């Protein structure tokens, strides 16, 4: 697989890790964004309270809605990450590209983290709202859980193979088939349980004032930035691992070649010393 290289944006001496000017800027932007998100989520927005005019009873999610400002963005990142993995898998099978293989693997790893967080934050949100940590009938919960399992399996599978080309091809098949499966899983669980708790409390039900919606979207942007930062670092790690593999291999071959003249000389000497002294060859 031919690999073309381009010069990095910083000089070789500065590169002591996977950081670069881009990631530093992005990182600070994300931290600033998270601070603003925090402000939006906890100070500037109101809790979800709805007053029933007839009975004057106050209902709603109250402050638990503030969990959605992390749950919703994290879920969006999950789907983005696995979508990128699917695209990468297609490119690996189509173009046999190492770059896409490393990208797909990096995106899957970050995706599994965010998928786990989606499940955890969703479960924590669900406890006060639905009065349960886990609801079997909920479509999105079931689908996200299975998505999580599929990609945990994908990562485990990648670890079992050492040949990078075989690994790229086979894990691309696993990733792609897994991704294709998700809409089917979604549909089948949706049929399974027509009413889902997700529908009982959705964005539409919230007293959605502009600031709430803005906070959700802002949160999505910030966390996509966090995802990009993590992805870039994880990609560079994968790339370095690939370099280490191929460098190690090249070195080993070079060393063997360097040994060759000595090895031949030794073999000839040995053959001569064990020859009979007749000097006659038939």
């Amino acid at each position, binding site marked *: *697989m*031919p*690999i*073309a*290289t*381009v*010069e*990095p944006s910083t000089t*070789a001496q500065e*590169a*002591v*890790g*996977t*950081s*670069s000017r881009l990631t530093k800027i992005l990182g600070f932007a994300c931290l600033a964004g*998270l601070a603003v998100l925090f402000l939006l989520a*906890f100070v500037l927005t109101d*809790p979800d309270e709805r007053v029933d005019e007839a009975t004057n009873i106050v209902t709603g999610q*109250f*402050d*638990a809605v*503030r*969990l959605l400002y*992390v*749950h919703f963005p*994290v879920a969006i990142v999950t789907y983005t990450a696995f979508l990128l993995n699917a695209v990468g898998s297609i*490119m690996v099978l189509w*173009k046999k*590209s*190492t*770059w*896409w293989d490393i990208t797909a693997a990096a995106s899957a790893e*970050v995706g599994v*983290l965010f998928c*786990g*967080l989606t499940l*955890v*934050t969703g479960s*924590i*949100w669900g*406890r*006060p709202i639905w009065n349960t940590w886990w609801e079997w009938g909920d479509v999105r919960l079931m689908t996200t859980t299975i998505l999580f399992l599929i990609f945990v399996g994908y990562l485990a599978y990648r670890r079992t193979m050492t040949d990078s080309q075989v690994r790229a091809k086979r894990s691309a098949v696993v990733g792609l088939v897994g991704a294709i499966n998700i809409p089917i899983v979604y549909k089948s669980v949706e049929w399974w349980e027509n009413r889902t708790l997700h529908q009982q409390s959705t964005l539409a039900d919230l007293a959605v004032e502009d600031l709430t919606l803005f906070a959700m979207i802002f949160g999505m942007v910030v966390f996509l930035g*966090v995802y990009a*930062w*993590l992805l870039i*670092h*994880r990609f*560079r*790690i994968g*790339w*370095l*691992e690939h*370099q*280490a593999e191929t*460098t190690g291999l090249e070195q080993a071959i070079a060393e063997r070649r360097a040994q060759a003249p000595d090895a031949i000389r030794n073999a000839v000497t040995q053959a001569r010393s064990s020859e009979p002294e007749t000097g006659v060859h038939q």
Partner: protein
Amino acid sequence: MTHIGYLIAGWGISLGAIGLYAVSLIRRGKVLAARVPAENRRWITSK
């Protein structure tokens, strides 16, 4: 603020897990970069 425990748990676990993962990535990156001395070029184009 109501549900404060859940809020701390949800936000705390999320930001904590992401932070730990970020730190581990940086560390892995440093270790690997040390092992690949001459080839510290970070990008490869797709081919």
